[in-house]
């Protein structure tokens, strides 16, 4: 649901107030923005790096009216962003897209890479409302595990599992590995997932086999961010407008494409 008519959500510029290094490849950028300060966990914004590009980024925090986005340097736009210092001007449109629903009871969050960012935002909001909050987080290596301290401050230690591919922290495996047994051992009322699409797909298979509720945030190429251009379509859904958060019933409808193919820059279907 778009809370504001698109015509009112015009691009505005703002200055970075703080830049924090989270890992060798990830930084968090902070700025003030009135509209985005009302964003809910799961929503994203379009960040304009003047003269370079405009890219979709999940909102990680809105405390005290300061908006945080956590960004991994993967290409041209994100590398340029990483070179910006406090005071630099950026443009903002949004917040766009839907958000995670607020569940009670026993909740599990599974994050891979920068997918941890919107889940941290969600965890902060759910902390006082749930009976048990569990967090499973995976990364390639120890130094790339994001928000370990923050998650530790929200979830009890026994409810946190970390995995690294090289074994430098936590279990040496993919984040999906410990999930099967966790889902068999403990009961969960909701499982929230954000990370690479292949990871989302595997976890969805695990929750489907056990008939568990799930909400997963997806990523697709985005241009307009408001449901017009068709760049971000998966199945019948637009990730920017109908998502980015989808529930089990919706994920089922897109299983021919989830983790299999996406629409590329030229509008053709390309395999992952």
């Amino acid at each position, binding site marked *: 649901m778009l809370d504001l008519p698109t015509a009112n959500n015009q691009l505005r*510029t703002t200055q970075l107030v703080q830049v924090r290094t989270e890992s060798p490849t990830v930084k968090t950028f902070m700025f003030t923005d009135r509209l985005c300060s009302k964003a809910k966990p799961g929503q994203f914004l379009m960040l304009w790096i003047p003269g370079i590009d*405009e890219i979709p980024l999940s909102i990680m925090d809105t405390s005290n009216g300061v908006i945080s986005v956590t960004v991994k340097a993967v290409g041209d736009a994100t590398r340029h962003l990483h070179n910006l210092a406090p005071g630099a001007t950026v443009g903002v449109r949004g917040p766009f897209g839907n958000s995670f629903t607020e569940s009670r009871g026993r909740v599990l969050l599974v994050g891979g890479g920068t997918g941890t960012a919107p889940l941290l935002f969600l965890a902060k909001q759910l902390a006082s409302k749930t009976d048990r909050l569990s967090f499973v987080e995976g990364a390639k290596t120890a130094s790339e595990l994001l928000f370990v301290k923050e998650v530790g401050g929200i979830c009890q230690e026994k409810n946190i599992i970390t995995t690294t591919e090289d074994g430098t922290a936590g279990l040496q495996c993919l984040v999906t590995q410990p999930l099967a047994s966790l889902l068999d051992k403990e009961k969960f009322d909701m499982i929230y997932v954000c990370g690479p699409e292949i990871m989302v797909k595997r976890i969805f298979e695990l929750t489907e086999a056990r008939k568990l509720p799930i909400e997963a945030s997806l990523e697709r190429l985005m241009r307009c961010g408001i449901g*017009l*251009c068709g760049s971000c379509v998966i199945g019948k859904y637009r990730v920017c407008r109908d998502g980015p958060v989808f529930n089990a019933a919706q994920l089922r409808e897109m299983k021919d494409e989830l983790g299999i193919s996406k629409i590329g820059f*030229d509008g*053709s279907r390309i395999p992952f």
Partner: protein
Amino acid sequence: MESNALSIDFAGLNLPNPTMLASGIMGYSAESFHRIAKSGAGAVVTKSVGSQPRTGYANPTVVQAESGIINAMGLPNPGIDVFTEEIKFSKTILRVPIIVSVFGYSAEDYAAVAKKAADAGADAVELNVSCPHVKQTGAEIGQSPKLLAEIVQQVKAAINKPLIVKLSPNVTDITVLAQAAVEAGADALTAVNTLRAIAIDAETQMPILANKKGGLSGACMKPVALRCVYDIADQYEVPIIGCGGVSNWRDAVEFLLAGASAVQIGTAVADDIEVFQSITKGVENYLRKKNARSVKDIVGLAHRK
């Protein structure tokens, strides 16, 4: 009222209602067209397709303006050879006509793409000769009556499906272009494509769109599009699709009164994908209130007064 009060015969196409999806809006996949049709569209128009794939321009490709948006996508499209599969797939699941929008760099190019689209099952072809933001195509063609006529003739000769020409509003006198298209064999006209526009950011003092200039669409352009339809209908007996800023039933009715037989909807999809349904319902109520038996009965009425 009979439900067929809303159905129209448009240039040989049977539409259950006079609303269509405009080109370039969710225009790539069969599943999107299916969803739009289920949201009530009487026909769908695809993204403009050319002979070769194009990745389009870098972001920002879209920027919100006052009551509208400016876009400079740069015609990203998979090329007609890939897109024929999507047309075929769409034909298996759609119950409303699919109109394939085509662009090119020469008359031969247009004709070749149009033929492939028609052969793949397109119910009609719409020529995008007015796309204002890609070099070598669009504006130049849509602004030249001679070039336009040449393209329309060649495409007409290449296909035997209805041929719709989508005009550019970025001309001094749109009726000159309308005449060129109709005399060259166009079966219908869409009026209009986007208005050339620019957005500049005061802080950074630079144009926002990566392509600098783009095309303005949405509510803010409605009065201009409406005038274009009115001007053409004033002079020619040709089926017209009104396009530009339609977002509710009243807008649609205004276009019908100006002389359009159908409307296309683009930007308004951002706020509500069910807009086709609500417009159709509103038009139906309007017809009842005005004691009109069908949509046809109100087309062009504004010209009498």
